């Protein structure tokens, strides 16, 4: 064997080892994220359905054509003078309600985030819910931070990085494992290890680009707080208005939202307003956030800030006019969640997203069958082990969902935090002990 061929062979062995070990130790995380991600792409649709059917909150046709909610917001402000934040989400389709997301900080009491539903035709509050205990919040928090508040988001980012490593190393060893096998042929055998290995290779290579994009964008989104701090990156569209009045006066100020929407249309015609928020810090501003049709960027990143007193524009952020670095920054979330091509694209994302879940399960099954050859291990045990792990993940997801919906977000988050961190410490401890044990054995083996 030539020196070059030997080096290539060594590289392939290294890639295989990386694929094997990274996949084995992070497979469970990748599997859970794949499942939650496939559901998370449909969060707006699921939430819309729940609001409509569970809360029976619907909007009647508006006499003016546009959503009406100024009076409802004004009455909310008077009912809850202790509010610290107010954000209004406009409906995407007719018949949907306007959401007023209000954070209440009562003196001596706990912070509460309430989502009020407003009939956009009659300008009337028709219902409310605790935002944090909603299913939409569960789905998002579970996928974004595994319900672990301390470093769950970074853990998910590491999962994204691991998926990128297994996808890229998978591509590099693909040829070695396919040998004379044709894509997409499955070998005719009843050996489950070979069947799983064939599906693993074929599905892995077929959804590779998608998984690499999801992995890299997921790694960025998850590790964003750390990376931004380390690399001193600033959020591109932040704007801090000067304080011009007392916070209490700012909070109590009446805003004519119809006028705000009219001004937004005049000052920023391409903007499709989706979210409005009113300042509470004394800056006396209203922020209009929204999308520009046909653009593949994160939701609601285009901004128009208006003065509360005379509705004149103070700040405008149009992503189309920004530098490439801004565009690159804001394309990540859209590419990760696929919300730029309607329901069809979301369905495609969900389908392709589930492949990484299948790959983590099939990879684990292959690993167990391989181990079975080395150790005296019953065939049924491989399936039993896979079943136990899969059910444990499902039980975790369902259990936390039930606790979050029926007991509360903070309890669910506490339990998830304890479980995840215990599992993490156990896994790292096991890997470390295993490594030390092998090292010890190697050093104490009698030399031949």
């Amino acid at each position: 064997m030539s020196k070059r061929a030997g080096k290539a062979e060594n590289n392939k062995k290294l890639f295989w080892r990386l694929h094997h070990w990274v996949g084995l130790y992070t497979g469970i995380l990748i599997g859970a994220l794949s499942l939650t991600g496939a559901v998370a792409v449909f969060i707006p649709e699921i939430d819309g359905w729940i609001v409509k059917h569970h809360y029976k909150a619907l909007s009647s046709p508006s006499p003016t054509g546009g959503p009406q909610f100024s009076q409802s917001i004004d009455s909310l402000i008077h009912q809850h003078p202790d509010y610290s934040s107010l954000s209004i989400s406009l409906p995407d389709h007719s018949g949907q309600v306007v959401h007023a997301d209000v954070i209440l900080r009562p003196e001596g009491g706990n912070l509460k985030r309430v989502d009020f539903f407003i009939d956009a035709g009659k300008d009337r509050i028709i219902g409310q819910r605790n935002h944090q205990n909603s299913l939409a919040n569960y789905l998002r928090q579970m996928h974004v931070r595994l319900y672990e508040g301390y470093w769950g988001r970074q853990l998910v980012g590491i999962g994204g990085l691991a998926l990128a490593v297994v996808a890229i190393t998978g591509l590099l060893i693909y040829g070695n494992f396919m040998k004379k096998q044709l894509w997409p042929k499955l070998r005719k055998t009843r050996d489950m290890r070979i069947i799983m290995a064939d599906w693993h290779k074929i599905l892995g290579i077929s959804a590779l680009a998608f998984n690499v994009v999801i992995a890299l964008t997921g790694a960025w989104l998850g590790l964003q707080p750390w990376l931004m701090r380390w690399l001193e990156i600033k959020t591109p569209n932040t704007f801090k208005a000067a304080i011009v009045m007392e916070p209490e006066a700012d909070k109590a100020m009446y805003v004519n939202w119809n006028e705000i929407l009219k001004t937004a249309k005049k000052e920023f015609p391409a903007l499709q307003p989706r979210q409005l928020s009113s300042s509470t810090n004394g800056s006396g501003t209203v922020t209009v956030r929204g999308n520009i049709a046909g653009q593949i960027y994160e939701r609601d990143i285009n901004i128009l800030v208006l003065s509360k007193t005379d509705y004149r524009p103070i700040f405008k952020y149009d992503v189309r006019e920004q530098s490439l670095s801004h565009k690159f920054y804001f394309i990540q979330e859209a590419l990760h969640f696929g919300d730029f091509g309607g329901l069809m694209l979301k369905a495609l994302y969900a389908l392709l997203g589930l492949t990484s879940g299948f790959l983590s399960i099939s990879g684990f099954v292959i690993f167990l069958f391989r181990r079975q050859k080395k150790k005296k291990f019953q065939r049924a045990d491989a399936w039993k082990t896979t079943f136990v792990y899969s059910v444990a993940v499902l039980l975790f997801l369902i259990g936390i969902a039930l606790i979050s919906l029926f007991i509360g977000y903070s309890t669910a988050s506490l339990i998830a935090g304890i479980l995840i961190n215990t599992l993490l410490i156990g896994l790292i401890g096991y890997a470390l002990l295993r490594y030390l044990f092998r090292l010890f054995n190697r050093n104490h083996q009698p030399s031949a």
Partner: protein
Amino acid sequence: MNAAKRKHNKRHDTHTEHHLVPAALFLLNVLAVHVVYVVYAYFNAVGNQIGWVVLLTLAFVALSSAIWIKNRIYLWCSMMYYVALFIYCWV
């Protein structure tokens, strides 16, 4: 060498199987998302350009059939066609 093995070897081109097909599948992933996005934009009157819908649908048909047929030249041509469209579209 028996006839079946000869037939298999003739059908199995390592370069095509190990490099061109994965590359084409990679592009097909991107293209699938691209086609759905353009069709959605067309039907929602966002980017009212039927030309892009036609060109990208053609690219999709060409690339998927090239992966199926596994002809080396056809694979290269369909990949280059989509890469050219992609670059033109985004740059």
